[in-house]
């Protein structure tokens, strides 16, 4: 069926089977590889995208569900000042190891900071549910909090 949506600022129109998941549409048809297949069961968050500005797991979305909606991945945030701040903070704080979970975490953190959800370190833990196996989360928490607390000032 015909699906129209906005991806990183571009209008997309595709004819897809109705049972195609958004992650497959993004990765296989549109070659957006930053969205990762980590579990395809909505558990790990590596496939996170922003749907109308909110983080959701693209592996659990059928592509027709995003008809008429706005999808953003890290490719679409390239020039964004807050995103660049976050990336810099991640890099400076050593919060990147194997990198598989990184795009999903960056998107989640970006959306949360924009909505002013990180009011304390507890909040960081509450909204950052993505799984990471390498870092133990501590440098990620630090990197995110540095930006969030800086932005709030």
């Amino acid at each position, binding site marked *: 069926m015909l699906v129209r949506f906005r991806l990183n600022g571009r209008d997309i129109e595709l004819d897809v089977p109705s049972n195609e998941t958004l992650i497959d549409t993004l990765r296989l048809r549109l070659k957006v590889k930053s969205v990762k297949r980590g579990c395809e069961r909505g558990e790990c968050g590596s496939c996170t995208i922003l749907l109308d500005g909110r983080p959701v797991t693209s592996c659990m979305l059928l592509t027709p569900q995003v008809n008429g909606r706005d999808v953003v991945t890290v490719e679409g945030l390239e020039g964004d000042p807050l995103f660049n701040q976050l990336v810099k903070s991640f890099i400076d704080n050593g919060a990147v190891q194997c990198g*598989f979970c990184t795009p999903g975490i960056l998107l989640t953190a970006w959306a949360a900071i924009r909505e002013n959800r990180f009011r304390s370190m507890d909040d960081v833990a509450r909204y950052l549910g993505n799984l990471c196996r390498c*870092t133990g989360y501590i*440098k990620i928490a630090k990197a995110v909090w540095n930006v969030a607390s800086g932005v709030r000032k």
Partner: protein
Amino acid sequence: MYSFIGKRSIRKDALPKTSGTIKFVNDLEAPGMLIGRILRSPYAFADIRRIDASEAERLGVVVLTPDDIPQKPFNPRLVSIHEVTYKDTYVLTKKPRYVGDAIAAVAAPSEELAQRAIESIRIEYERIYEPILDPFKAMEPGAPLIHERIMKGSEWVNVERNMAATLNYVEGDVDKAFRESDIVIERRFKTGKRYHMQLEPKSVLCIPEPGGKLTIYATTQTIHNTRILVSQIFDIPLSKVNVVKVPIGGSFGSSIQVNYLVPIAVALCLKSGKPVKISYTREEDILDHSNFVFHFRMKIGARRDGVLMGAEFENILDVGAHQVQPYPLLGTSLGWFVSMYKWRNIRYISKAVYTNKVPACALRGYGAPEVQWAVETMMDELAEELKIDPIELRLKNYVGRGEIFWGQGPTVKSVIKSDGVPELLEKGRKLIGWEKRSHPSRKKGRYRRGIGLARGFHTSGAGGPISGEVIDYTGCILKLNEDGTLDYITALQDHGGGTLDAHVKIISEVLGVPPELVNLATASTENTPYDVCTHASRGTYAGGEAARRAAEIVRSKIFEYAARIVGRVVNPEAFKIKYDEELKQAIVYVEGTDIKIPLSEIARIAWQKNWGTIGAFVSYRATSAPPSFTVYFVEVEVDTWTGKVRPIRVIAGADVGTLVNPDMVEGQLHGGFAMAWGMTFTENTVYEENGELAGRGLITDYKIPTITDMPTPEDFIVITADTYEPTGPFGAKGLGEAAMNPAVGAIANAIYNAIGVRFYELPITPDKIVKALRERGEIP
């Protein structure tokens, strides 16, 4: 002191990783690519009579059954020498021995079609057996044999009582030692069966090239062993197989062996003549491999004054349905045990046993977290019995500087030259408030806190002066470009910990070329010297030393060329090279003179004057595998009503010699602690009676720690020791595994200090804690 080493720096792949442009294997595509999928056995123990793939063939897909593949058994892990490589695996099998064993495979233009084809294949079974899920039952006389005959090296051997391998060792007289001991403690320990849960599910892409060559991209810790195994199974010369190194999404040991999907993809590729990609779902990944289950019986004897007299260690390893590396693990388990403390007299009896479960492979530490948990639990008990301070007891008995250290088993021995244990224990005890600990009997109320300590180590690689049963050498190529920048090519893999950035820093330190101008080149088997595998925490220690040697060779050649340029008669030994802060590049100079030439100029002149390329080709075997010592002090809080535990504060101490990447040292400790937390409390793959994974292998029920389970950044303190390892590049040692090894013991000892209960079976679930407390009447 150093220009680059020890300074915090930006890792080279940081931008590709944060921008999402970095490509893992499953992100790669090739024109005309087919997607492969594997038919997996629904039964844990069965013999197949017939496979009917006619429906799949009618769908027009490429189909492979066991009859299409050379029936050569192999072991996917080629780190051990040939003579002790046990082979019981086939690319596809008619004798599945666990739920998930690969029976057939298809490749089709789309994943959807491939899956439909898989589902259309019909299997007729000759016999279905009752699965054996307990290694002790497997060893009982009369138990059906999971494998009857396997190959060891080039010989066929009969399997007795489902024992995959055995290893025994005796030193001294243990029985006499126990008789002479004032106290003898014996305990049994059992672990769960953990899964690596590396975020990247394993994948492979195999591409046929003109001329009969194959190019392979695989999730692997060893491109060279991948190449060699493929060559061995399919009888293709190594010169016709090229394995390209690609980034991997974490590993933790899950890709030390060549993964089962690689030869399957190669076979599909050979049959179809097209590129084939196979990528596991998460459930397939959990069925592909998980960790060993360890059953220990440990008995230790000591004198009243705390001196250890002897130890007996019995180790039963549950290896699952196929051997990946149990035999060397029997050796390393002993090695870890023996190198923790001076037992003086030892008896070791061990067996690796087959069961109808997912094949076990190394998981970060390769037995060390398990052994160190058990040993540190017993040392804690011993200290309490003898009324000696636990720290004093450790210091009195541990294997430290100047002593012989076993490292990775009986054939890998060296003398310890750097040892930061006393320093770490001293610093750590102050930071955690060790003296303020109270006995568990004094703790009341719903929430109880406890402080625990454990120490441990891991080797830096598996090198040694003599060649034993383990292959361990590495190499690299370093060349100077025509503009003074460098290309560095190595087969060593970075799992994420930043190993290759450490190499670059080492090169920069020797040559004064800033890290930004050292290129980490695309590496593949055809343009790199052999590297056995990035495991055993050898990346920085062995790989970094190879890089350093290459840089030294390049440096001496640069000085030769500099001498030609300078004209005045100058002894090449007078030259020095350093990084110039102002010019932001390397310059060659002579002290006390005005001689000063930028490296870029030397390179340009050499090019213009036809002098030749400066480069180095290094193949290097470390003569030592020095221990990196780590120490954990952990404070936990136990909710005695729910049995849930949370971390209050962690002091993680590491002796890694010279710190090359301080950020990455901390990162390893954070990650190691998180993994240890999961190992202690939640991680276990559970089997139904029919051999299937409970919960269908969904990770909904394989819980790894999330951010909410970890302490805040302020509550996790990292301390390092001021040591220098003379055999390591610039004094550095590894850390990847040492970062985790003792943490489980520390957490377990903290639980004891909180509630006065010790647990001898992992994971320590809330269920078990509450049950134990109720039995003791601690809670109603």
